[in-house]
């Protein structure tokens, strides 16, 4: 069973392991700096489907199938799936995964959903409530634009602080290390978790989500470091997803006010996914498919290859809706932390 460490952190004593993982992306993402690391890249943004929602659903289907293949297990071996996306009622998850016949629990944490699903799946396997659980998220630029912003062909200008919703999906299969069948080839353990508290520092601009989310990321990281008595230098990487350029800078500044310097080990999925100079993405990438695809491809590959050992993954989510923004509300944000060790 997990044990509480300090006020906000949970230490996982059985240390669930990542059995398999996969990242699937669209064209623009595959042309980014990490293009070679994804398990699958689509050249056609619609994936040949008749709607953007169907295309996004397929990203999830493919990510889960690939992750199951890599784990060497069948879908019938999975006890529970935790899935989320950005669309209303999480339809990418439900429609993408409906044929799997696996007990399903939909999740919404905006761009923090990858950390949220991974954390809950880890607790389920840690507690023995599931032998194997799946965590999966997705986002699609085109389905997000039409829901949150403007039609694709509308001739508007994006502000410099706007982030580009990534087209992608990431899936991870989490297993119990006591399960002999499943512990054969994995090196990545889930060591600890911190669920974040909602912060709201009064940012209203939905085109500046990085600034809205930075305090949430800083707060959760501080909670974790306080609870565990560790420092940023105890980790190879503190990976946020997805603050983008502006949010990342603000998070580092906020932590520096409390004398916590993460600049040497901090990186952000929204910064890593695109080439800022060539890809016209303004403040970087966003969307729960962005952190999902990067964590479940490049990062986990680096961990298995022994190049990264201690990674703090912080999923950050801006919890507004188009309705709340139109009503002039500020943007509440949350960040969840998952400590991965290889």
């Amino acid at each position, binding site marked *: 069973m997990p044990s509480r460490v300090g006020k906000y952190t949970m230490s996982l004593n059985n240390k669930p392991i990542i059995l398999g993982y996969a990242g699937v992306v669209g064209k623009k993402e595959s042309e980014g700096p990490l293009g070679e690391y994804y398990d699958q890249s689509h050249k056609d943004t619609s994936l040949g489907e008749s709607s953007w929602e169907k295309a996004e659903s397929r990203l999830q289907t493919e990510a889960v199938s690939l992750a199951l293949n890599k784990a060497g297990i069948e879908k019938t071996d999975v006890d529970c799936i935790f899935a989320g996306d950005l669309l209303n009622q999480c339809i990418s998850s439900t429609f993408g995964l409906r044929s799997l016949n696996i007990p399903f629990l939909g999740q919404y944490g905006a761009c923090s959903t990858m950390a949220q699903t991974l954390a809950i799946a880890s607790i389920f396997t840690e507690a023995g409530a599931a032998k194997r659980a799946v965590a999966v998220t997705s986002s699609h630029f085109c389905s997000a634009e*039409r829901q949150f912003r*403007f039609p694709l062909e509308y*001739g508007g200008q994006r502000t410099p602080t706007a982030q580009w919703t990534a087209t992608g999906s990431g899936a991870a299969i989490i297993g119990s290390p006591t399960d002999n069948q499943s512990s054969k080839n994995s090196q990545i353990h889930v060591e600890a978790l911190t669920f974040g508290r909602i912060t709201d520092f009064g940012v209203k601009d939905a085109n*500046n989500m990085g600034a809205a989310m930075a*305090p949430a990321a800083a707060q959760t990281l501080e909670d974790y470091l306080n609870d565990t008595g560790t420092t940023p230098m105890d980790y190879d990487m503190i990976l946020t997803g997805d603050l983008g350029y*502006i949010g990342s800078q*603000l998070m580092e500044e*906020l932590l520096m006010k409390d004398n916590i310097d993460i600049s040497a080990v901090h990186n952000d999925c929204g910064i890593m996914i695109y080439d800022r100079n060539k890809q016209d993405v303004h403040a970087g990438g966003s969307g729960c498919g962005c952190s999902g695809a990067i964590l479940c491809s490049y990062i986990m590959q680096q961990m298995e290859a022994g190049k990264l050992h201690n990674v703090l993954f912080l999923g950050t989510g801006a919890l507004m809706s188009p309705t709340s923004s139109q009503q002039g509300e500020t943007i509440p944000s949350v960040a969840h932390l998952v400590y991965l060790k290889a």
Partner: protein
Amino acid sequence: MNVTKEEYKQMADKASPGSTYGKNLFFAFVIGGAICTLGQFLVNLFLQYGNELKDARAWTSIALIGLSAILTALNVYDNIAKYAGAGTIVPITGFANSIVSPAMEFKSEGYIIGMGGKMFVIAGPVLVYSATASIIYGLIIWFFKLY
């Protein structure tokens, strides 16, 4: 965290770059001006073919609306607008784009609820308030007997 909302607002404002007004104004002027020049060229063309000025202007509006609708359908308009900004939004071309783009986008929800229902989702407020403004204008003219 040792920071108040006010302090954070200052930090966020400092970290968030504003729009590049010089560049935006330049492209809006050049591209918006080019559209207007094209409009004047069309007016002259229609006049040459024997139309009256009033008719020539109507034909010009129709031509520009048609052209921007086609460019929107060909996925070209938004790529020009990305640089032109107000230069493509303010002329009548922007109005056409604001109707054609949701019509394309929401076709996947069907021709009635999707395309028909959402076609004016961006242009709707413009229509509402321009009609309202013209009524107020008409009332002022009428009350003060300016006609």
